[in-house]
């Protein structure tokens, strides 16, 4: 009997979604192992984000993993777990509770800027500046740190 790729696709997707976003596991899976696997995947995402954003990981220190796991538990992963989008959404989830140091904010903005064309900014409360990055094709990256009123920098958000 030839393999039914569509049926396999559906089953594989079901397992994947169960592991990544907490959907029900297909019938017959050992639930103790399955939930351990889901947690292990969130830890792996955490490690990937920490590798991509070392300044962020350093800034949060021991709070990094528990915070990330809490975020991962309540947030469906982006199409590439552990990648830039995951990092950005995680940072956004933190901003209300934790004041990130300038280094971590700069790091994230520069990573976001690694595209052919980009314009973005981030507040640097510590330096009293707004950091602006402009990147144009064939024109390289320009970075400007603009003095910015402190009272505007104090508000939450990237």
């Amino acid at each position, binding site marked *: 009997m030839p*393999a039914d790729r569509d049926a396999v696709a559906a089953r594989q997707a079901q397992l994947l979604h169960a592991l990544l976003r907490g959907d029900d596991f297909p019938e017959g*899976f050992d639930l103790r*192992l*399955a939930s*351990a696997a889901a947690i292990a*995947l969130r830890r792996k995402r955490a*490690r990937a984000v920490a590798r991509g954003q070392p300044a962020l990981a350093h800034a949060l220190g021991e709070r990094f993993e528990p915070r990330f796991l809490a975020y991962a538990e309540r947030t469906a992963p982006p199409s590439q*777990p552990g990648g830039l989008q995951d990092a950005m959404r995680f940072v956004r989830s933190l901003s209300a509770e934790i004041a990130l140091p300038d280094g971590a904010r700069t790091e994230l903005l520069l990573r976001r800027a690694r595209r052919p064309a980009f314009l973005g900014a981030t507040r640097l409360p510590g330096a009293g500046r707004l950091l602006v990055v402009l990147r144009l094709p064939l024109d390289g990256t320009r970075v400007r740190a603009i003095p910015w009123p402190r009272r505007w920098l104090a508000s939450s958000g990237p």
Partner: protein
Amino acid sequence: MSARMSARTIAPLAGVGLGWRPQLEGFADRAQLGFAEVVAESVDPRRLPPGLDRVRRSGLDVVPHGVGLSLGGSERPDRRRLDHLAALAERLEAPLVSEHIAYVRADGQEAGHLLPVARTEESLEILCENICEAQARLPVALALEHVAALVEWPGNEIDEATFVSTLVARTGALLLLDLSNLYANAFNHNWDPLEALRRFPLRSIAYVHVGGGVHRDGLYHDTHADPVVPGVLALVEELFAITDAPGVLLERDGNFPPEAELTDELRAITAAAQRGSARADRSGDAPTRVAADRAR
């Protein structure tokens, strides 16, 4: 371009190796390595990281190790991914490439992880078709790595050793024997790793992986971010006691320790292999020892 080179036509990877990572660049330059490996998706063949290029130009074999082909998935292998792997193999003049018996995406969502396939005849059929397609587009031999998985599909028809052996026999692919994955699955799913090890397709080993992990809450986790546990080193010794295995490569992906610690790990792997070989020589165990038909 046909890619069905048998194990006999390639020189064996020998000694102890290291998975090259940018964070390990300096260490890779200084360590006495037998060979290396690099994650294929992390490297652009047209723009090799200088550190990787140095390793290659020092005369070491570097094996492109793919994680994105999803050979166990329901989709056919992506042409662009295959072309990338082939291009990297050519750029590095690699003796072979490796990938996994796993799936990594479904329904447009990346898993970010190597997920297990069901051990069924249906899976074997899909894997064989996908692997054959891959082999046809690769300029060198393909070695397949079995993965560690905390979950097992209900309805598995055969055990892991049988599944991997059958797959290797049907496709002519080589085996990337991962002793940490074998240890992990044996521990977590309650089977005897030594008994199973003998039933893996040992004559087809292209090279061996070991990686670190951690026991936590009654389970073993294959993290590649911790030291190699003694149980895995014991499997290295056993492997060399029963067969003339080729090189053993250490995978470390994160939580990078001081260089001295990595050097110690490489030495421990070498020592385990030597203890195993010495046991085999002493016991004169020739009839039961798996003959190594590689590149003689």
